[in-house]
C-alpha cells in the first residue's frame, strides 16, 4: 500500500462514502426479505455517475454491512435478515430470549468484526496463490467437496434422518428448469415460466420471512416477548477472547476458504463453521438452545466469507458469490477490467478496494453497536405496521430479482411449503442448502461425466476427490453405527 492509496482511503469523502455504504448494508441486512445482493444490484445503476473506485468501495462497504446486519433481526426477531444469518437464529434468539440480548448481539458483532479482519489478512496476503490453487480442483473434486458440505449440513439438526430428508427435498425443488449440466428442460410441466426454475431469493423469502410472519400472527401482541438491547455490556471481555479465540480463528479460516470457492457464499460458510464448532465443542448439547459458541462461529464465518470471496474476484476476475457477480459487473462498467491483469495494471485500485473492506469492517463494529438500540426497535413496532411493511418488502424483493410476478407467486408457494415443513418438524436449513448446492454439484458432476465419457471411476482415482468422498461417506455412516451400538446396549 503506498501513500496515495492511504490518502485516498482516509480522505473525508471516502470515509463518508464507506460509512454510508456500511450503514445502508446493515439496515438492509437487518430487514428480512431484503438482502445485500438486492441492495447492491439496485445501487449499481446509481453509481454510474461516480468515479470507479468510489463506486466499488461503496458497494464493498454495502456488502460488508449487509452480511453483518442480518444478525440483529436473527437475534431479536428470530428471522434471519439475510440467508447468511440463518445459523445465528438458532442460538442468538434463545440467548436473547433468556434475558441476555445485549450479550447475544455483542458476541455476534465482535465475532463478525473479527471474522472480517481475519479474512482481510488473507485477502491482503494470499489473494494470488489461493486462487491459483482453486484452479487445480477438477470437476470431480468440486463435486466431492459440495457433497461433503451437504453431508455436514444434514448433521446439524436434531434428527439426521429429517436433515437428510429436508436436504433432498431442497435438491428436488432446485431441479425444475434447464438442467445445469445438459441444458435440457425438465420438470416444468410445459409451463415456460418454469424454464428458469425457482430462484433462491423468492424461495428464501417465502420459506423464512413470509411463513414466519404468518406464524407471528398467531400470537397476540401481548404474547410476544419484547426483546430490546442497549449498547452496554456488548464488548467482549478478555476472558471471552481467551475462551472463544480458537473458535473465532477456526471459523474465520473456514469462512475465508469457503468464500474463495466459486459460487458458495456466506450462508454455507456460516453453516459449516457452526457444525464444526458443535462437533469440537465441550458442550454440544447447548447448541440450538442459546450457545454462545454457536453465535460466535456463525457470525465470524459469514463475515469471513466476504474477504474470502473477494480473493478470486480481485485476483482472477472470478466471482465467489452472487454479490461478487454483481461487483464484477460494476468493475466492468467502471472500466476496471477484471482478470489476472488487474493486480498489475491497476494496483492502486485493487489496494484501495482491499483497504475499503478493512475500513468498512471496523466501521461496521462501531455502527452496529451504536445503532443496536435503534435497530432493535424493529421488534417493538406494532405488528399492525410491521407485518404489512415486511410483506410489501417481500413482494418487492421477490419481484425485483428479475422483474417478474412469477417469482412473487413462487414466494407465496414456498410460504406454504415452509409452514408444512414446520408442521412436520422438518428443519428448514438443510432444505435451503440442498437447494443452493445441488445445481452446483450437478453442473460439476455433469462436466466431469461429459469429459470422462460417463464414467464415475475417476472420482476414486483422483486423490482430492477420493479423500473428500470417503470423508463424506464416513460422516454419514459413523453416526448411524454409533446409534446402532447404542441401541444394542439398551
Amino acid at each position: 500500500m503506498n501513500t496515495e492509496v492511504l490518502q485516498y482511503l482516509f480522505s473525508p469523502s471516502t470515509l463518508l462514502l464507506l460509512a454510508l455504504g456500511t450503514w445502508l448494508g446493515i439496515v438492509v441486512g437487518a430487514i428480512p426479505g431484503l438482502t445485500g445482493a438486492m441492495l447492491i444490484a439496485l445501487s449499481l445503476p446509481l453509481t454510474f455517475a461516480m468515479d470507479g473506485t468510489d463506486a466499488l468501495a461503496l458497494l464493498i462497504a454495502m456488502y460488508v454491512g449487509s452480511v453483518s446486519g442480518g444478525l440483529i433481526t436473527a437475534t431479536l426477531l428470530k428471522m434471519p435478515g439475510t440467508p447468511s444469518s440463518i445459523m445465528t437464529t438458532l442460538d442468538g434468539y434463545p440467548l436473547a430470549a433468556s434475558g441476555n440480548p445485549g450479550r447475544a448481539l455483542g458476541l455476534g458483532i465482535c465475532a463478525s468484526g473479527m471474522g472480517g479482519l481475519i479474512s482481510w489478512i488473507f485477502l491482503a496476503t494470499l489473494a494470488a496463490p489461493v486462487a491459483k490453487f482453486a484452479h487445480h480442483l477438477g470437476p470431480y473434486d468440486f463435486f466431492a467437496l459440495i457433497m461433503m458440505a451437504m453431508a455436514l449440513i444434514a448433521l446439524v439438526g436434531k434428527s439426521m434422518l429429517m436433515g437428510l430428508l429436508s436436504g433432498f427435498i431442497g435438491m428436488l425443488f432446485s431441479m425444475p428448469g434447464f438442467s445445469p449440466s445438459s441444458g435440457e428442460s425438465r420438470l416444468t410441466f410445459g409451463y415456460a415460466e418454469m424454464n428458469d426454475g425457482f430462484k433462491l431469493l423468492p424461495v428464501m423469502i417465502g420459506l423464512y420471512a413470509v411463513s414466519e410472519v404468518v406464524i407471528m400472527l398467531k400470537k397476540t401482541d401481548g404474547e410476544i416477548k419484547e426483546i430490546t438491547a442497549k449498547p452496554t455490556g456488548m464488548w467482549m471481555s478478555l476472558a471471552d477472547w481467551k475462551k472463544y479465540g480458537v473458535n473465532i480463528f477456526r471459523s474465520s479460516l473456514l469462512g475465508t476458504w469457503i468464500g474463495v470457492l466459486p459460487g458458495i457464499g456466506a450462508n454455507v460458510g456460516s453453516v459449516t463453521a457452526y457444525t464444526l464448532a458443535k462437533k469440537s465443542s465441550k458442550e454440544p448439547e447447548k447448541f440450538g438452545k442459546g450457545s454462545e459458541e454457536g453465535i460466535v462461529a456463525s457470525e465470524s464465518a459469514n463475515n469471513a466469507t466476504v474477504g474470502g470471496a473477494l480473493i478470486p474476484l480481485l485476483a482472477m476476475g472470478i466471482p465467489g458469490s452472487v454479490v461478487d457477480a454483481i461487483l464484477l459487473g460494476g468493475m466492468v462498467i467502471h472500466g476496471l477490467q477484471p482478470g489476472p491483469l488487474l493486480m498489475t495494471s491497476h494496483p492502486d485500485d485493487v489496494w484501495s478496494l482491499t483497504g475499503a473492506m478493512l475500513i468498512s469492517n471496523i466501521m461496521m463494529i462501531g455502527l452496529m453497536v451504536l445503532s443496536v438500540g435503534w435497530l432493535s426497535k424493529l421488534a417493538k413496532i406494532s405488528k399492525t405496521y410491521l407485518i404489512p411493511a415486511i410483506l410489501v418488502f417481500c413482494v418487492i424483493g421477490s419481484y425485483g430479482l428479475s422483474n417478474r410476478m412469477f417469482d412473487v407467486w413462487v414466494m407465496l408457494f414456498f410460504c406454504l411449503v415452509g409452514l408444512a415443513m414446520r408442521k412436520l418438524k422438518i428443519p428448514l436449513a438443510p432444505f435451503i442448502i440442498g437447494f443452493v448446492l445441488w445445481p452446483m454439484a450437478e453442473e460439476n458432476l455433469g462436466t466431469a461425466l461429459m469429459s470422462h465419457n460417463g464414467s464415475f471411476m475417476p472420482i476414486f482415482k483422483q486423490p482430492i476427490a477420493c479423500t473428500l468422498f470417503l470423508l463424506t461417506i464416513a460422516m454419514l455412516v459413523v453416526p448411524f453405527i454409533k446409534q446402532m451400538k447404542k441401541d444394542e446396549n439398551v
Partner: protein
Amino acid sequence: MIQKFPISKSPKLWRQIFCLSALFACFNLSADNAENWPQRPVKVIVPFGAGGSSDTFTRQLIRVIKKDNLLSQPLVVINVGGAGGTIGSRRVRNARPDGYTMLMLHEGILTAKHAGKAAYGPEAFEAVAATGMSPNVIAVKSDSHFESLKDLMAEAKKSPNALNFAANIGAPSHFAGLILEKTDKGAMFNFVQYGGGAERYGAIMGGHVDMSVFSIDEYLRYKDGGLKALAVFSNERQAALPELPTSAEQGFELNSSIMNFWWMPKGTPEAIRNKMAEVIEKAMASQDMQGFMKSNWIKDTTLKGQDLSAELVEREKTISEVSMRKIDVLPRFERWIFGFVAFFSVLAFLQKSNSRSSERIWNFTSIKVFALSAIYVSILSLTSLSYPLVSSAYVFVLGLIITRKEKPAYLPLAFFSLVLSFGLFFLFTRVLVVDLPG
C-alpha cells in the same frame, strides 16, 4: 363484535379509491400513435442479470442517448434474467406492440431456438437494429502443443471426440464449436458443459479441457493469465489482435461472432422502429460510445433495415446448418433425487413417533392475511392498476385485519399505508429507477 367489517363504515374512502383508480386506469390506456411516440418511458428488457456484457453495453448506450438528448423520454433498463435469455425474450414477445417495450438480445435468440430452448426465434419479433460486434476466438492453454488451428483440427479429425471443448451447451459458445467442426468433415470435439467465460477459462487453466471459444474482450482479459489464441473466427484480422490469424487464413471458412440485436414485439409500427433505429445509430456514432467500444474491444458496427434483415438471415442459416448431438452420458438426476426423497420420506413416516407437531401454527387471521396477499399479488399480476394505489389499499386492509382493537386507528393506519406505498414507489421508480409490478 359489532364492527366486524369496520371498513364498510367508510364508504367515502372506497369512493375515493375507486375514483383514483379509474383515473389512473384511464391515464394508462390513453391512446398513443406512432407520430408522437414516445409519450412515456420506454422499457428495455435485458434478458440477463445486471453487470453482464449485454447489460453493460445497453446501459452505456442508454446513458449516451440520455446525455445527448436523442429521445424525448428516458429508456429504462429492466433485467429479466434466466433460462439463457428466454424468460426475458418471452416477456417482450408477449408485450403490447406499442413501442414501449424493447429487447436487447444477442446471438442467444438464434441459439435458443435451434437448441430447442425456445419455440421461437427472430421471426417472432421486429428487428430494430444491430449494434457492436465481438468476433469469437478459439484459445488453448499457453503451453499447449497446438500451435495453430490446423494442428487442432488435424488432431480432432484423427481422434474424434477425444479433445474436450468447454462450452455452454445450447448457447452461442457451443454453436461456435459446432460450426467450427463442420468446416472440416470428420472432426469432432467432445463438448463439456462450462457456464460463463470465467468458468471456461478456469477449465482450460486447470487442464480439465483442451480448448474453448471466447469473445475478443473475454480473451484479452484472460490472455496474460495463460491463454493462447489460435484463430479469430472472422473474415479479416482484428485491430485488437493484429498478429492473430483468421480461421479463413488457415483454411477454415467460418464466421462466428456475438452481435447485439435490438428487438420490438411483432406488429410494432414501422415509424416507431425507424425512429428508434435512428436514435441508436446516432448514439453509436457518438464519441462516448466509440470510446467505450474501443476500450472494450467491441467492433463498431451498426445495422438497420435491409442490411439487418440480410445479416439475420445469414446468421440463422449458419446456425441451422449444424445440429446438436444429444448428450447421452448423463443420468437422469431428477430420478435419483426423487428416489432419495421417497426413500427418506418412507423412513420418516415409519419413525412417526416424533413427527407431526401437535402445535397449531396458523389461525384464522393468518389465513386471512395469506388470502389477502394472494389477492394483492393477483391484482398486481393481472391488472395494470398503479402500484402505489393497490399497495396502499393492501397495507390498509392488512393493518385492519391484524389489529384486534375494537376501534382501529384508521387515521394513522391510512397515513402509514399511503406514506409506505408512495414512498417506496418514489424511491424505487424515481431514485433507483427500478421497475415495480402493476
